[in-house]
């Protein structure tokens, strides 16, 4: 198993160096995808020892992630772990994500703030309700049990990783909720582990009350129109 940590980063010059350092200190290979934020994110990530891919134009998290997945596939990695560049994700729990993946034979493991043992501190009521609704949709329409569907702390392995390298949505909520919906419907095995999330170490929060409302609208649109992308179904032999 060859693990690559993919860090999509948009204007994270304040904390990217710490995130990269703590990933490398744990012995993982790390690639930072700089999403053309126009600041010193890339320089600081390189100085901290990361491999950096610079997107020429801003593509959003989905575009940065697909670039990371493609890099992972082309360099022979079998598992990619997504960690945000804002220092919010507990890098020390990457090992648990990977262990859960192996022990429970999962194609994607999501770090959840709301799973057993997870803390609800600092999460607004609106956002929690929003998560519950998204979880309910995932349970009903994809038979996937995820309590924190918009979490960006997760591990993905082959062959799902290869599928996501081909097709991965770039619009809001597409890279998390919709990707999980499509993977679940296509027979991939998804699971979660409880993770304590830290508050943001710097940068600008992208999720707020408007984001919750937006995510609801987006989730309903996906339900009505169907997902915006598709992947090949999981074959019976599972991962390679």
């Amino acid at each position, binding site marked *: 198993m060859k693990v690559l940590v993919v860090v999509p980063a948009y204007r994270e010059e304040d904390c990217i160096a710490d995130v990269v350092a703590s990933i490398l200190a744990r012995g993982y290979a790390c690639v930072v*995808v700089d999403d053309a934020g126009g600041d010193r994110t890339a320089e600081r990530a390189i100085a901290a020892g990361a*491999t*950096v*891919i*610079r*997107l*020429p*134009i801003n*593509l959003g998290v989905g*575009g940065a992630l*697909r*670039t990371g997945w*493609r*890099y992972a596939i*082309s360099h022979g990695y079998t598992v990619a772990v997504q960690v945000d560049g804002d220092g919010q994700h507990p890098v020390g729990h990457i090992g648990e994500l990977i262990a859960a993946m192996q022990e429970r034979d999962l194609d994607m493991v999501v770090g959840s703030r709301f799973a057993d043992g997870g803390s609800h501190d600092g999460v607004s009521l609106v956002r929690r309700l929003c998560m519950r609704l998204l979880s309910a949709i995932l349970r009903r329409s994809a038979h996937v049990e995820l309590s924190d569907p918009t979490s960006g702390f997760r591990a993905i392995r082959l062959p799902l990783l290869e599928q996501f390298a081909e097709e991965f949505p*770039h619009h809001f909520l597409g890279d998390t909720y919709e990707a999980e919906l499509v993977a679940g419907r296509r027979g991939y095995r998804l699971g979660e582990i409880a993770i304590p999330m830290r508050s943001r170490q710097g940068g600008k929060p992208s999720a707020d009350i408007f984001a919750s409302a937006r995510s609801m609208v987006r989730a309903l649109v996906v339900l009505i129109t169907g997902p915006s992308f598709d992947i090949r179904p999981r074959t019976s032999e599972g991962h390679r």
Partner: protein
Amino acid sequence: MSTTVKQALVLAFGGLGLALVILRLARRRLLTTRYAFGWLGVGVLVMLAAAAMPFVGKLGKVANITPTAVLLMISSAVLLAISIQLSISVSLLQERLRSTAEAHALLARKVEELEQRQANP
């Protein structure tokens, strides 16, 4: 001069004006041939609509609405269709631009890796 004739004249000159503007934009290369042809087609359609004004009047009588309303409905429908077509084109271009940007970033990284390997064999 009856209203129908006035409307026909407005349409004829409007269509001609549109076609001239499009030709000028195409000559200045602000429009690609594909879109220039499309809009010239619209201009020609507007001019043909001028010739079809008596028919529009009849259609209005059958539907019990004024010829002006019939014209507005048809022109709104055409504009809506064009907007949807443009949205489809923009969506496609957005996806292509995204793929190109991703490929560009990955290739730039590959070049860096090759340069590093060459510098420290």
